[in-house]
Protein backbone atom coordinates (compact mmCIF):
# COMPACT_ATOMS: atom_id res chain seq x y z
CA UNK A 1 0.00 0.00 0.00
CA UNK A 2 1.31 3.41 -0.93
CA UNK A 3 1.23 5.86 1.97
CA UNK A 4 -0.03 9.29 1.03
CA UNK A 5 2.13 11.21 3.48
CA UNK A 6 5.74 10.85 4.56
CA UNK A 7 6.27 11.80 8.18
CA UNK A 8 9.60 12.35 9.89
CA UNK A 9 10.43 14.16 13.13
CA UNK A 10 7.86 16.96 13.07
CA UNK A 11 7.70 17.22 9.29
CA UNK A 12 5.07 15.70 7.04
CA UNK A 13 4.92 16.01 3.27
CA UNK A 14 2.68 14.71 0.52
CA UNK A 15 4.63 12.00 -1.26
CA UNK A 16 3.39 12.90 -4.74
CA UNK A 17 4.64 16.43 -4.18
CA UNK A 18 8.07 14.95 -3.50
CA UNK A 19 7.82 12.76 -6.59
CA UNK A 20 7.04 15.81 -8.70
CA UNK A 21 10.59 17.12 -8.36
CA UNK A 22 12.93 16.39 -11.22
CA UNK A 23 15.86 15.58 -8.99
CA UNK A 24 16.89 14.99 -5.41
CA UNK A 25 18.80 18.25 -5.51
CA UNK A 26 15.71 20.23 -6.53
CA UNK A 27 13.68 18.61 -3.78
CA UNK A 28 16.28 19.33 -1.10
CA UNK A 29 16.50 22.95 -2.21
CA UNK A 30 12.72 23.26 -1.85
CA UNK A 31 12.26 21.24 1.34
CA UNK A 32 15.10 22.99 3.15
CA UNK A 33 12.96 26.12 3.12
CA UNK A 34 9.81 24.53 4.54
CA UNK A 35 11.09 22.14 7.20
CA UNK A 36 12.88 23.03 10.41
CA UNK A 37 14.82 19.99 11.58
CA UNK A 38 16.85 21.22 14.51
CA UNK A 39 20.01 19.67 13.11
CA UNK A 40 23.33 20.65 11.49
CA UNK A 41 22.97 21.24 7.74
CA UNK A 42 24.62 17.97 6.80
CA UNK A 43 22.26 15.88 8.90
CA UNK A 44 19.27 17.88 7.73
CA UNK A 45 20.16 17.14 4.12
CA UNK A 46 20.59 13.48 5.01
CA UNK A 47 17.04 13.38 6.41
CA UNK A 48 15.62 15.02 3.31
CA UNK A 49 17.45 12.49 1.15
CA UNK A 50 15.71 9.76 3.14
CA UNK A 51 12.34 11.39 2.46
CA UNK A 52 13.11 11.70 -1.24
CA UNK A 53 14.16 8.07 -1.37
CA UNK A 54 11.03 6.87 0.44
CA UNK A 55 8.74 8.89 -1.84
CA UNK A 56 10.37 7.64 -4.99
CA UNK A 57 10.52 4.05 -3.82
CA UNK A 58 6.73 4.23 -3.57
CA UNK A 59 6.40 5.84 -7.00
CA UNK A 60 4.49 3.55 -9.36
CA UNK A 61 6.83 2.13 -11.95
CA UNK A 62 6.17 3.30 -15.53
Amino acid at each position, binding site marked *: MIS*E*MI*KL*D*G*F*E*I*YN*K*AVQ*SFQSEKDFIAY*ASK*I*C*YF*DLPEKEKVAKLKVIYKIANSEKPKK
Partner: protein
Amino acid sequence: MTVINNPSCIVTASNTGVANCKPYPSIIKGAVLLPKGKVLSEAECADLKTTLAALYIANSSLRAYPIQELTGFKDSSKEETKGTSGSYGAEKYVKRAEYVWEFELINGVFYANRLRSFNSPNNAYDVIFLDEKNQMWGTTSVTAGVTGFKGYSLTEFHVMDNKMADGANAGLNNVVSFALKDAKEFNENIAMLSDATVNIELSDLKGMIDLTHTSVGGVLKISIGIQKADDKTDLYDTYATQFAALGNFIIKKGGVVKSVGTTANDLVAIAANPLTKKWDITLYAGSAGTDFTVEMQTPTVLAAAGIGGTPGNYFEDVSITTATVTAT
Protein backbone atom coordinates in the same frame (compact mmCIF):
# COMPACT_ATOMS: atom_id res chain seq x y z
CA MET B 1 -62.61 -0.07 33.58
CA THR B 2 -62.67 3.39 35.08
CA VAL B 3 -64.60 3.54 38.33
CA ILE B 4 -66.12 6.87 39.19
CA ASN B 5 -65.67 8.09 42.75
CA ASN B 6 -62.85 5.68 43.52
CA PRO B 7 -60.06 7.64 45.27
CA SER B 8 -57.75 4.59 45.17
CA CYS B 9 -56.95 4.67 48.88
CA ILE B 10 -54.65 1.69 48.63
CA VAL B 11 -51.96 1.38 51.25
CA THR B 12 -48.76 -0.23 50.01
CA ALA B 13 -46.38 -1.36 52.69
CA SER B 14 -42.89 -2.74 52.43
CA ASN B 15 -41.40 -5.27 54.79
CA THR B 16 -38.96 -3.84 57.28
CA GLY B 17 -36.23 -6.37 57.83
CA VAL B 18 -32.78 -4.77 57.97
CA ALA B 19 -30.26 -6.08 55.45
CA ASN B 20 -26.56 -6.27 56.18
CA CYS B 21 -25.69 -3.71 53.53
CA LYS B 22 -26.77 -0.20 54.46
CA PRO B 23 -25.69 2.18 51.70
CA TYR B 24 -25.77 5.93 52.09
CA PRO B 25 -24.26 8.68 49.99
CA SER B 26 -20.86 9.59 51.34
CA ILE B 27 -19.02 12.87 50.83
CA ILE B 28 -19.62 14.00 47.27
CA LYS B 29 -16.40 14.60 45.30
CA GLY B 30 -17.60 15.01 41.74
CA ALA B 31 -20.62 15.44 39.52
CA VAL B 32 -21.58 14.87 35.91
CA LEU B 33 -24.10 16.99 34.07
CA LEU B 34 -26.03 14.75 31.69
CA PRO B 35 -28.27 15.97 28.89
CA LYS B 36 -31.76 16.39 30.32
CA GLY B 37 -33.67 13.13 30.31
CA LYS B 38 -30.65 10.98 29.44
CA VAL B 39 -31.19 7.52 30.89
CA LEU B 40 -28.26 5.15 31.16
CA SER B 41 -29.25 1.60 30.29
CA GLU B 42 -28.10 -1.45 32.18
CA ALA B 43 -25.46 -2.10 29.52
CA GLU B 44 -24.24 1.51 29.69
CA CYS B 45 -24.03 1.30 33.49
CA ALA B 46 -22.11 -1.98 33.30
CA ASP B 47 -19.22 -0.12 31.68
CA LEU B 48 -19.86 3.33 33.06
CA LYS B 49 -16.29 4.49 32.60
CA THR B 50 -16.48 3.86 28.86
CA THR B 51 -20.02 5.22 28.65
CA LEU B 52 -19.11 8.50 30.32
CA ALA B 53 -15.87 8.85 28.36
CA ALA B 54 -17.90 8.60 25.14
CA LEU B 55 -20.47 11.10 26.42
CA TYR B 56 -17.75 13.64 27.29
CA ILE B 57 -16.71 13.84 23.64
CA ALA B 58 -20.14 13.48 22.05
CA ASN B 59 -21.62 16.25 19.93
CA SER B 60 -22.52 19.19 22.15
CA SER B 61 -26.26 18.45 22.30
CA LEU B 62 -25.56 14.93 23.57
CA ARG B 63 -22.48 15.74 25.62
CA ALA B 64 -21.99 15.09 29.33
CA TYR B 65 -19.91 17.53 31.34
CA PRO B 66 -17.95 16.28 34.35
CA ILE B 67 -17.24 18.54 37.30
CA GLN B 68 -14.38 17.79 39.63
CA GLU B 69 -13.17 18.18 42.31
CA LEU B 70 -15.83 19.21 44.81
CA THR B 71 -14.06 20.16 48.02
CA GLY B 72 -16.79 21.30 50.38
CA PHE B 73 -20.51 21.12 50.96
CA LYS B 74 -23.24 23.23 52.47
CA ASP B 75 -26.80 22.02 52.66
CA SER B 76 -29.12 24.92 51.84
CA SER B 77 -32.16 22.70 51.46
CA LYS B 78 -35.56 23.59 52.85
CA GLU B 79 -36.92 20.87 55.05
CA GLU B 80 -40.35 19.37 54.66
CA THR B 81 -43.10 21.78 55.53
CA LYS B 82 -45.68 21.07 58.22
CA GLY B 83 -49.10 22.62 58.20
CA THR B 84 -51.91 22.58 60.71
CA SER B 85 -55.14 20.92 59.83
CA GLY B 86 -58.29 22.66 60.94
CA SER B 87 -58.85 24.69 64.11
CA TYR B 88 -57.87 21.71 66.27
CA GLY B 89 -54.35 22.18 64.96
CA ALA B 90 -53.38 18.63 64.00
CA GLU B 91 -50.06 18.84 62.19
CA LYS B 92 -49.42 17.16 58.88
CA TYR B 93 -46.59 17.25 56.41
CA VAL B 94 -47.90 19.25 53.50
CA LYS B 95 -44.84 19.79 51.35
CA ARG B 96 -41.72 17.81 50.57
CA ALA B 97 -38.17 18.95 51.06
CA GLU B 98 -36.61 21.33 48.54
CA TYR B 99 -33.06 20.14 48.02
CA VAL B 100 -30.47 22.82 47.38
CA TRP B 101 -26.91 21.52 47.59
CA GLU B 102 -23.97 23.86 47.47
CA PHE B 103 -20.51 22.49 46.74
CA GLU B 104 -17.19 24.25 46.82
CA LEU B 105 -14.62 24.10 44.03
CA ILE B 106 -11.08 25.40 43.94
CA ASN B 107 -10.39 25.15 40.21
CA GLY B 108 -9.90 28.86 39.65
CA VAL B 109 -11.90 31.71 38.20
CA PHE B 110 -11.62 30.60 34.56
CA TYR B 111 -13.04 27.18 35.38
CA ALA B 112 -15.82 28.88 37.32
CA ASN B 113 -16.65 30.89 34.21
CA ARG B 114 -16.87 27.70 32.19
CA LEU B 115 -19.37 26.31 34.68
CA ARG B 116 -21.27 29.61 34.65
CA SER B 117 -22.13 28.91 31.04
CA PHE B 118 -24.53 26.32 32.48
CA ASN B 119 -26.16 28.82 34.87
CA SER B 120 -29.83 28.67 34.21
CA PRO B 121 -33.18 28.15 35.79
CA ASN B 122 -35.06 25.39 33.95
CA ASN B 123 -31.73 23.74 33.53
CA ALA B 124 -31.12 21.68 30.42
CA TYR B 125 -29.11 19.10 32.34
CA ASP B 126 -29.62 16.43 34.95
CA VAL B 127 -26.88 15.60 37.44
CA ILE B 128 -25.35 12.46 38.88
CA PHE B 129 -22.94 12.57 41.80
CA LEU B 130 -19.85 10.54 42.66
CA ASP B 131 -18.98 10.16 46.32
CA GLU B 132 -15.68 9.43 48.02
CA LYS B 133 -16.48 5.72 48.11
CA ASN B 134 -16.73 5.81 44.30
CA GLN B 135 -20.46 5.28 44.47
CA MET B 136 -22.49 7.01 41.78
CA TRP B 137 -25.82 8.49 42.85
CA GLY B 138 -28.80 9.27 40.66
CA THR B 139 -32.40 8.23 40.30
CA THR B 140 -34.29 5.42 38.65
CA SER B 141 -36.19 5.87 35.45
CA VAL B 142 -38.58 3.25 34.21
CA THR B 143 -39.36 3.12 30.51
CA ALA B 144 -41.54 0.35 29.14
CA GLY B 145 -40.88 -1.75 32.24
CA VAL B 146 -37.11 -1.39 32.00
CA THR B 147 -35.33 0.46 34.81
CA GLY B 148 -32.47 2.77 33.91
CA PHE B 149 -30.14 5.10 35.81
CA LYS B 150 -30.82 8.80 35.38
CA GLY B 151 -29.51 12.05 36.78
CA TYR B 152 -31.47 14.19 39.22
CA SER B 153 -33.69 16.75 37.49
CA LEU B 154 -32.68 20.29 38.35
CA THR B 155 -34.73 23.42 38.84
CA GLU B 156 -31.53 25.41 38.79
CA PHE B 157 -27.80 25.08 38.38
CA HIS B 158 -25.89 28.11 39.50
CA VAL B 159 -22.28 29.08 40.08
CA MET B 160 -22.13 31.86 42.59
CA ASP B 161 -20.12 35.01 42.07
CA ASN B 162 -16.45 35.05 43.01
CA LYS B 163 -15.36 36.16 46.45
CA MET B 164 -12.18 37.97 47.37
CA ALA B 165 -9.60 36.18 49.53
CA ASP B 166 -9.89 37.08 53.18
CA GLY B 167 -6.58 35.83 54.47
CA ALA B 168 -8.20 33.02 56.41
CA ASN B 169 -8.79 30.45 53.68
CA ALA B 170 -6.01 28.53 51.97
CA GLY B 171 -7.66 29.02 48.62
CA LEU B 172 -10.38 31.07 47.05
CA ASN B 173 -13.42 28.90 46.61
CA ASN B 174 -16.19 28.99 44.11
CA VAL B 175 -19.60 27.64 45.05
CA VAL B 176 -21.80 25.69 42.69
CA SER B 177 -25.42 25.14 43.63
CA PHE B 178 -27.69 22.32 42.51
CA ALA B 179 -31.41 22.73 43.20
CA LEU B 180 -33.27 19.46 42.72
CA LYS B 181 -36.65 19.52 41.09
CA ASP B 182 -38.26 16.49 42.71
CA ALA B 183 -37.52 15.22 46.22
CA LYS B 184 -38.89 11.86 45.21
CA GLU B 185 -35.86 11.31 42.96
CA PHE B 186 -33.54 11.41 45.99
CA ASN B 187 -35.87 9.36 48.16
CA GLU B 188 -38.32 6.78 46.83
CA ASN B 189 -36.52 6.62 43.47
CA ILE B 190 -32.94 6.95 44.63
CA ALA B 191 -30.49 4.90 42.58
CA MET B 192 -26.88 4.06 43.22
CA LEU B 193 -24.16 2.30 41.33
CA SER B 194 -21.61 0.83 43.66
CA ASP B 195 -17.88 0.98 43.18
CA ALA B 196 -17.87 -2.78 42.68
CA THR B 197 -20.21 -2.52 39.72
CA VAL B 198 -19.09 0.69 38.02
CA ASN B 199 -15.35 0.77 38.78
CA ILE B 200 -15.20 4.51 38.31
CA GLU B 201 -13.28 7.10 40.26
CA LEU B 202 -12.83 10.83 40.45
CA SER B 203 -10.02 10.85 37.89
CA ASP B 204 -12.51 9.48 35.35
CA LEU B 205 -14.44 12.73 35.56
CA LYS B 206 -12.23 14.72 33.23
CA GLY B 207 -13.82 17.21 30.88
CA MET B 208 -12.45 18.61 27.68
CA ILE B 209 -10.09 21.55 27.56
CA ASP B 210 -10.77 24.27 25.02
CA LEU B 211 -8.06 25.33 22.65
CA THR B 212 -7.73 28.40 20.50
CA HIS B 213 -5.41 28.89 17.60
CA THR B 214 -3.94 31.76 15.68
CA SER B 215 -3.14 31.67 11.99
CA VAL B 216 -0.99 33.97 9.92
CA GLY B 217 -0.71 33.66 6.18
CA GLY B 218 2.48 34.15 4.17
CA VAL B 219 4.03 33.18 0.88
CA LEU B 220 2.52 29.77 0.10
CA LYS B 221 2.12 29.06 3.79
CA ILE B 222 -0.07 29.40 6.85
CA SER B 223 1.56 29.48 10.29
CA ILE B 224 -0.57 28.17 13.13
CA GLY B 225 -0.05 28.65 16.87
CA ILE B 226 -2.11 26.69 19.40
CA GLN B 227 -2.83 27.57 23.02
CA LYS B 228 -5.17 26.50 25.78
CA ALA B 229 -8.11 28.89 25.78
CA ASP B 230 -8.09 29.68 29.50
CA ASP B 231 -4.51 30.01 30.67
CA LYS B 232 -2.93 30.48 27.23
CA THR B 233 -0.49 27.63 27.76
CA ASP B 234 1.26 27.07 24.44
CA LEU B 235 0.97 23.48 23.24
CA TYR B 236 4.08 23.54 21.05
CA ASP B 237 6.54 22.21 23.60
CA THR B 238 4.30 19.27 24.46
CA TYR B 239 2.87 18.39 21.06
CA ALA B 240 5.32 19.72 18.44
CA THR B 241 5.55 16.40 16.62
CA GLN B 242 1.97 15.24 17.15
CA PHE B 243 0.42 18.38 15.66
CA ALA B 244 2.73 18.16 12.63
CA ALA B 245 0.16 16.23 10.61
CA LEU B 246 -2.17 17.82 8.07
CA GLY B 247 -4.93 15.47 9.23
CA ASN B 248 -5.23 17.49 12.44
CA PHE B 249 -6.44 20.56 10.57
CA ILE B 250 -9.29 21.55 8.32
CA ILE B 251 -8.09 24.11 5.80
CA LYS B 252 -10.73 25.67 3.58
CA LYS B 253 -10.51 28.10 0.72
CA GLY B 254 -13.69 29.95 -0.04
CA GLY B 255 -15.51 27.53 2.25
CA VAL B 256 -14.27 24.44 0.38
CA VAL B 257 -12.16 21.93 2.29
CA LYS B 258 -8.72 21.55 0.76
CA SER B 259 -6.67 18.37 0.80
CA VAL B 260 -3.21 17.34 -0.33
CA GLY B 261 -2.47 17.66 -4.03
CA THR B 262 -0.28 19.16 -6.68
CA THR B 263 -2.35 22.03 -7.97
CA ALA B 264 -2.76 25.59 -6.71
CA ASN B 265 -4.38 25.89 -3.24
CA ASP B 266 -3.68 22.25 -2.39
CA LEU B 267 -1.84 21.34 0.79
CA VAL B 268 1.68 19.98 0.48
CA ALA B 269 3.37 19.76 3.86
CA ILE B 270 3.36 20.73 7.50
CA ALA B 271 6.37 21.36 9.70
CA ALA B 272 6.84 22.10 13.37
CA ASN B 273 8.85 25.32 13.57
CA PRO B 274 10.91 25.51 16.77
CA LEU B 275 11.91 29.11 16.06
CA THR B 276 8.35 30.46 16.14
CA LYS B 277 6.80 27.56 18.10
CA LYS B 278 4.16 27.29 15.42
CA TRP B 279 3.26 24.79 12.73
CA ASP B 280 3.76 25.93 9.15
CA ILE B 281 1.47 24.51 6.50
CA THR B 282 2.90 24.74 2.99
CA LEU B 283 0.61 25.15 -0.01
CA TYR B 284 1.30 24.23 -3.60
CA ALA B 285 2.73 26.72 -6.08
CA GLY B 286 0.21 29.27 -7.30
CA SER B 287 -1.87 29.23 -4.09
CA ALA B 288 -3.22 32.62 -3.14
CA GLY B 289 -6.24 34.25 -1.57
CA THR B 290 -7.66 36.12 1.37
CA ASP B 291 -10.25 33.45 2.03
CA PHE B 292 -8.30 30.61 3.64
CA THR B 293 -9.79 29.47 6.93
CA VAL B 294 -8.23 27.25 9.56
CA GLU B 295 -10.05 24.91 11.95
CA MET B 296 -8.84 22.00 13.99
CA GLN B 297 -10.22 18.50 13.85
CA THR B 298 -12.55 16.90 16.40
CA PRO B 299 -11.29 15.81 19.83
CA THR B 300 -11.32 12.16 18.78
CA VAL B 301 -9.21 12.82 15.69
CA LEU B 302 -6.73 14.80 17.77
CA ALA B 303 -6.64 12.03 20.38
CA ALA B 304 -5.91 9.47 17.66
CA ALA B 305 -2.91 11.63 16.73
CA GLY B 306 -1.68 11.46 20.32
CA ILE B 307 -3.04 14.87 21.33
CA GLY B 308 -5.11 14.47 24.48
CA GLY B 309 -7.52 11.66 25.25
CA THR B 310 -7.96 9.23 28.10
CA PRO B 311 -6.66 8.95 30.75
CA GLY B 312 -5.99 12.70 30.43
CA ASN B 313 -8.15 15.46 29.03
CA TYR B 314 -9.37 15.66 25.47
CA PHE B 315 -8.87 18.93 23.60
CA GLU B 316 -11.42 20.82 21.54
CA ASP B 317 -10.58 23.81 19.38
CA VAL B 318 -13.20 26.52 19.63
CA SER B 319 -11.79 28.95 17.08
CA ILE B 320 -11.94 29.45 13.34
CA THR B 321 -9.39 31.83 11.87
CA THR B 322 -8.80 33.39 8.48
CA ALA B 323 -5.46 33.72 6.70
CA THR B 324 -4.26 35.48 3.60
CA VAL B 325 -1.87 33.50 1.41
CA THR B 326 0.23 35.05 -1.32
CA ALA B 327 1.77 33.22 -4.26
CA THR B 328 5.03 35.16 -4.26
